[in-house]
């Protein structure tokens, strides 16, 4: 297992493609970058590169899915929900016949969030979770590491319906071992704790775990939830966390409006209201940062383990 999400995505696709001839893959001039080109080398008649035409890619995927194929359509997040939302909504999510809600299309985006780095604000997709979780029938996954990506790619292939999975550009810490069982709709209790809960997704999970370690040294017991399944959201785990830890801090590399933090806050409000603080990009855009500066860019927007720990302390202080 490599720490590269895209490499694990590509590996899973080849395995799936070998087992199931209905698996097809689409790319928009990004098959090399998304590591789907390997699938094309193994199964040349099942990889469709439509060129730089993301709306077309999504609609073609919808047609393939309508006809019984299981298409995985991939490109950068900024060009998927960021560009093709009409095709995603009307061609993929909306068509329903009988029990099938939406068409069986898997949209997998790389380059989610600020950690895209050098390409700059135009390429840092900070709104995709908000967009995608507002669309009925879609399930929205934000895995934290390459192991999760591998597992969830397989899960998506085996589960009927439209999915959106957001991957990060950069290599990420490996958090899970290969036996981890990840199921959409079920948050992972990544760390037990009783004084506060940190809900994270994507690259912020490892930050949250580091923050929890630091806070543990100070005698604060932090629960950490991997909210990789932003939709369906695990309301039970959230309610339990609210009841048992009394406060929740969310963190994500996404606009604070509409993202995972919003989803958690909505859930807490309706189940067991406790103080919730949302950490994310404060309704603004990112900017370029060289690869070595990406942690600084994230830090500038408050997305770091140090800041997560600080916000937990503030949250506990506010509650006293």
């Amino acid at each position, binding site marked *: 297992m490599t720490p590269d999400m895209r490499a694990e995505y590509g590996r899973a696709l080849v395995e799936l493609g070998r087992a199931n001839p209905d698996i097809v893959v689409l790319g928009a001039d990004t098959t090399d970058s998304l590591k789907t080109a390997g699938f094309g080398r193994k199964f040349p008649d*099942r990889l469709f590169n439509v060129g730089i*035409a993301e709306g*077309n890619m999504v609609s*073609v995927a919808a*047609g393939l899915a*309508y006809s019984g*194929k299981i298409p995985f359509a991939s490109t950068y997040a900024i060009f998927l929900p960021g560009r093709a939302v*009409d095709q995603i909504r009307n*061609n993929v999510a909306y068509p329903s*016949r009988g029990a099938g809600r939406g068409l069986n299309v898997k949209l997998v985006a790389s380059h989610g969030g600020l950690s895209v780095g050098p390409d700059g604000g135009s390429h840092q997709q900070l709104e995709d979770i908000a967009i995608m979780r507002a669309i009925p029938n879609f399930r929205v996954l934000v895995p934290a590491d390459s192991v999760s990506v591998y597992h969830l790619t397989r899960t998506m292939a085996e589960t009927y319906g439209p999915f959106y999975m957001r991957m990060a550009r950069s290599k990420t810490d490996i958090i899970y071992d290969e036996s981890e069982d990840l199921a959409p709709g079920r948050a992972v209790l990544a760390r037990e704790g009783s004084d506060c809960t940190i809900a994270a997704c994507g690259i912020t999970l490892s930050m949250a775990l580091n923050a929890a370690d630091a806070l543990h040294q100070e005698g604060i017991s932090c629960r950490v939830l991997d909210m990789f399944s932003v939709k369906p959201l695990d309301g039970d785990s959230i309610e339990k966390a609210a009841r048992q830890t009394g406060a929740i801090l969310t963190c994500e590399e996404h606009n604070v409006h509409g993202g995972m933090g919003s989803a958690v806050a909505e859930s807490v409000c309706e189940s067991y209201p406790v103080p919730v603080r949302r950490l994310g990009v404060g309704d603004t855009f990112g900017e370029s940062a060289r690869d070595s500066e990406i942690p600084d860019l994230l830090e500038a927007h408050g997305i770091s383990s140090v800041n997560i720990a600080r916000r937990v302390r503030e949250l506990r202080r506010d509650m006293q």
Partner: protein
Amino acid sequence: MGSGYCSIRRNALRARALVVRATAAAGSGHPGGSFSMAEAMGCLFKHMRYDPTDPLWEERDRLILSKGHAAPGLFSYLAISGFIKESEMETLRSLGSRLQGHPDLKCPGVEFCGGSLGTGLSYSVGVALALRLDKNPGRVFAVVGDGESNEGQIWEATMSASKFGLDNLVVVLDRNYVQQDSYTEGVMPLDAAVPGPDPVAARGDRSAWRTADKWRAFGWHTIEVDGHRIEQLDGALHRALAHRGGPVIIVSRSVKGRGVEHMEDNPQWHGKAPSHQTVPIILRELESQAAVAPSIIAGDMARLDREVSRCQEAGADFVHLDVMDGAFVPNTTFDHAKIRELRPITDIPFDTHLMISEPVRSVRRYAEVGSDIITVHAEACDASEFGEILDYLHSNEVGAGIAVNPATPVPEWLDAFVPKLDQFIVMSVVPGRSGQAYIEESHQKTQEVAAYLRDRGFGGVIEADGGVNASNVAGCFADGARTFVGGSSMVGQADMGRAIREMRSLILGARRLGLLREAHRLGGPELVEKWAALHTVGGKADSIREMAAEASLL
């Protein structure tokens, strides 16, 4: 063997009527774009393989309506083809209906949730790719609008279909020159500019056509047709399906709102439903579509090939072929061998009128050589023979007609056949030779025949044949005739094109007057005024008002 011309024409009329009723009931909807594709849809449903009892049959052809706002136009054909009941059309756009404002998979036979324009062709590419991967013989037919061709994604899909070499994909572009705001050529042109005030001038000016050029440049095989000429659409689909190696587009140049004069070429009717008050007048108008059928024996009998070419150039709707055998009538003209010779000259439908004895013995030969409608004489057969003829013709997709001579009453045995009959010829001369004068009593007879047929569920057309000319054609129309055979009045004229245009204009006048009378009957001068005022395009309202005033209807 036949083209199914008559059944397609009948279905197109039925489809339009269903669209009128459904959109009027809904109070909204898009009749204009439904009408412009009515003939194209009729031809598609003829060519498609489908099973209404098993809408998801694996090997079916897939019809994808990319211009989803024309949903009523699709639903009407799903009703005609048996996917849904005709009565369901009345639920269009209502809460809980399977007939949504735009096509939805809820409705059997619908393969694509249309509505957001420009995406249906990409979706069709996906479906075609999947069928090819599965070695499924099903084919994909996508109906695309010219307005939606403003969407860049249409061209993304065009490139993709070409790249992937999809020869299981056929596009019909409903090129009706109108979109929501206005005329396409003003909003976003697809053809070259044509100077002058006519916003749809490019439709009739081949030198301005650029639409197919674009698709050709993107690697498509292109075919141009008149979108209301069934024979052209049918021929184009045959060729498109035979094409190998890549996708095909049929550019179907059509008239938005076609069939209802006040909706024709009128952007107002892109997305508006007719009022309840006007529905009966509109339905009457739909049944008032007329055609001209020049009879070539009025020309040079030694060069009938040339006469057929003249009919083609003059824009005839049919070529009327009078077959005389020297037994049923004293004269002899030609037989099926000559028709076989003439068939390759034009794709205009052949309206073959058999003035022969014992037609039951030879009708097959006339069908085999490419007749689209064959009419036999009531005097030359009995019920069982006619039944055999009709069954044979219909099973071979040839229209079936019956003709009666001036002295012959409608035979009693015809009653049972009326609903299946495609044509009824009222002879207004004694058949046998060209150039005779119209027998005045024929007006009365045609009116009686029209009433007789109407009462028995007739879905075909009455043809006036014999001495029809500019002086009596309006009267023949008022009697109920809808196809007009012209011998000396058309083929006998040096400029047949002009003669036909004049006849058409007289027929249009008669049609307008008939509709004004209908409006007056239904709602007095107030409805007459309303009806006239609907004709906003091309200053027609004023001339229609004038006509109403002259007829003391206003």
